[in-house]
């Protein structure tokens, strides 16, 4: 444990060196949020009170909470760093020392997220201030607790998806295409671009069988109290199941990859 804690602390220090970088990254990541807010304000200005079950306040809250979820849980640099470690032989250092690469990366990911969130909070606060009268607090205590739990699981889930994509670097020279495919799918299917209940219900139900809605749509819905107790438990269970399955898959692929790695020379 103390090793992982130390890696986390080193990760914080290391990432802090890139805080300016992070700040501008975070700033420009908020551009789509501003666009979405402006768009929904215009749509609701047309006269409708409720669209697809969302009031204007709910809709804007959805995007703000979704952005918060993205800030704290999305994978940014890690995927590319892992792929580079594999390609350039950086993982050798984990293979010869008594340390596991997955745990090592997970600590760094956590540190990354913490710094990123801290840095992004500033511009985020400005947007919150701009829309202050629309922001809804968590529906109730259960929503808040459920939200925090689902947020943590969402981070783990997204890390695993990115980790799996990065492991392709054992076989392909350039993972950016796959990385982009994952990102595009995630954007659409996780509810980052719009709440998934705007979709036809059959499609929504279909998506709920994939891991993507559990990366964003689910935690946001929990926060907003749109998920009842039974669905909350079910959703958390789904997150757990996906995490276990993807972790198992990551282990298998890691060992397969190592076989290739140790075959070609680290």
């Amino acid at each position, binding site marked *: 444990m103390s090793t992982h804690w130390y890696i986390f602390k080193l990760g914080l220090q290391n990432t802090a060196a890139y805080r300016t970088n992070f700040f501008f990254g975070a700033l420009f990541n908020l551009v789509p949020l501003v666009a979405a807010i402006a768009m929904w304000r215009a749509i609701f200005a047309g006269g409708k009170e409720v669209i697809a079950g969302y009031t204007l306040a709910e809709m804007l809250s959805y995007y703000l909470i979704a952005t918060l979820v993205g800030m704290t849980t999305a994978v940014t640099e890690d995927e590319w760093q892992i792929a580079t470690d594999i390609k350039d032989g950086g993982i*050798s250092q984990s*293979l*010869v020392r008594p*340390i596991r690469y997955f745990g090592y990366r997970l600590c760094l990911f956590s540190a990354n997220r913490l710094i990123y969130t801290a840095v992004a909070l500033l511009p985020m606060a400005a947007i919150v201030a701009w829309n202050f009268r629309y922001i809804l607090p968590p529906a109730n205590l259960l929503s808040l607790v459920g939200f925090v739990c689902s947020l943590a699981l969402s981070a783990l889930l997204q890390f695993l998806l990115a980790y799996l994509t990065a492991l392709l670097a054992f076989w392909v020279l350039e993972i950016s295409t796959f990385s982009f495919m994952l990102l595009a799918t995630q954007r659409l299917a996780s509810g980052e671009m719009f709440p998934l209940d705007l979709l036809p219900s059959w499609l929504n139900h279909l998506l709920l069988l994939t891991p993507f809605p559990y990366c964003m749509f689910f935690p946001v819905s929990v926060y907003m109290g749109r998920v009842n107790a039974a669905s909350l438990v079910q959703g958390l269970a789904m997150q757990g199941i996906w995490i276990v399955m993807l972790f198992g898959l990551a282990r298998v692929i890691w060992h397969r990859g190592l076989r290739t790695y140790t075959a070609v020379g680290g």
Partner: protein
Amino acid sequence: MQSSPAIEVNGLTRIFRTYKKQPGLTGALKGLFAREYEPTVAVNDINFTIEQGECVGFLGPNGAGKTTTLKMLAGLLHPSAGTATVLGFTPWERKQEYRRQFALLLGQKNQLWWDLPARESLALNGKIYRIPSADFTRRVTELTELLRVDNKLDVMVRELSLGERMKFELIAALLHRPKVLFLDEPTIGLDVVSQETVRDFLRTYNRTSETTILLTSHYMSDIEALCDRTIIINEGALFFDGQLAEIIDRFSEYRFVTVKLPPGILPRIADIPAEIMVFADSRLRLKVARANFILVCRMLLDRHPVEDLEIQDVSAEEVVREIFTRNSAPHGVLESASRPAVREPALSPSPLAVL
């Protein structure tokens, strides 16, 4: 079993499949569908045993299979055939107990965190290897003082010189007192002073800590300075295993003999079984086959009022270079007389006008 060898290697073989690209665009297109692979033998049936506390140098030209062998022993590569045991472990199983007891230092890859002071990377290794903190502090002080980088602990790694970085890499690798240390090109790219410091340090460390060291280098001087024993591999095969000095005895067939004659005396050497390299300023330099060495010396001394006589062996480096430049000479061929002459090391031969 109290003194079992630290490293035992039996028939270790490594064959790589390298992708063979056809020339040109058509070739590239073909390669997309049906790749042709060509087996390359990187390490071929190598055998050796290294006792605990030995310092052994792995010598060979680029691509000889040095690093491949080292990586197999560190568990980073699976062999295609053969076995190896290090400290009783099969390296490529990568057991945690094994990883706690050895260290691998790859000259061109680093484990230090680029954007943090070296102290942090060392501390991380302290945690990873679960070194008690008092022990850790003592060890860092001791090692940084020995390598003279104790004032650099708080400098960002990226601001360190190449030599300082290598020294910290070494320290990071030694903190947990590994029983076996694999060093791949530990002095590559270092300036002469740093090379010397690292060498001195390793020599002392090996003597005092009883750590088994296996190092690769293509600098002969590293190995000459550090290792009692040298293993030469060439083209993947074990070529020589023994003391460096033996290489001269075994593989060099020539000596250089220089005699100084009084001014005005011309050498009478038409029938001497030796090759004349140079005759200038009353100095005659001959290249003599070892078998004829005594005979030639006697002839020279009998026939001339020799003022001075100097005998020079071909340097080990010269011999090894000679071995490497001749491609894949099988063991037997070396001893045969068909072997081309060893290049003359010091003076460049000038045409002889006298005889």
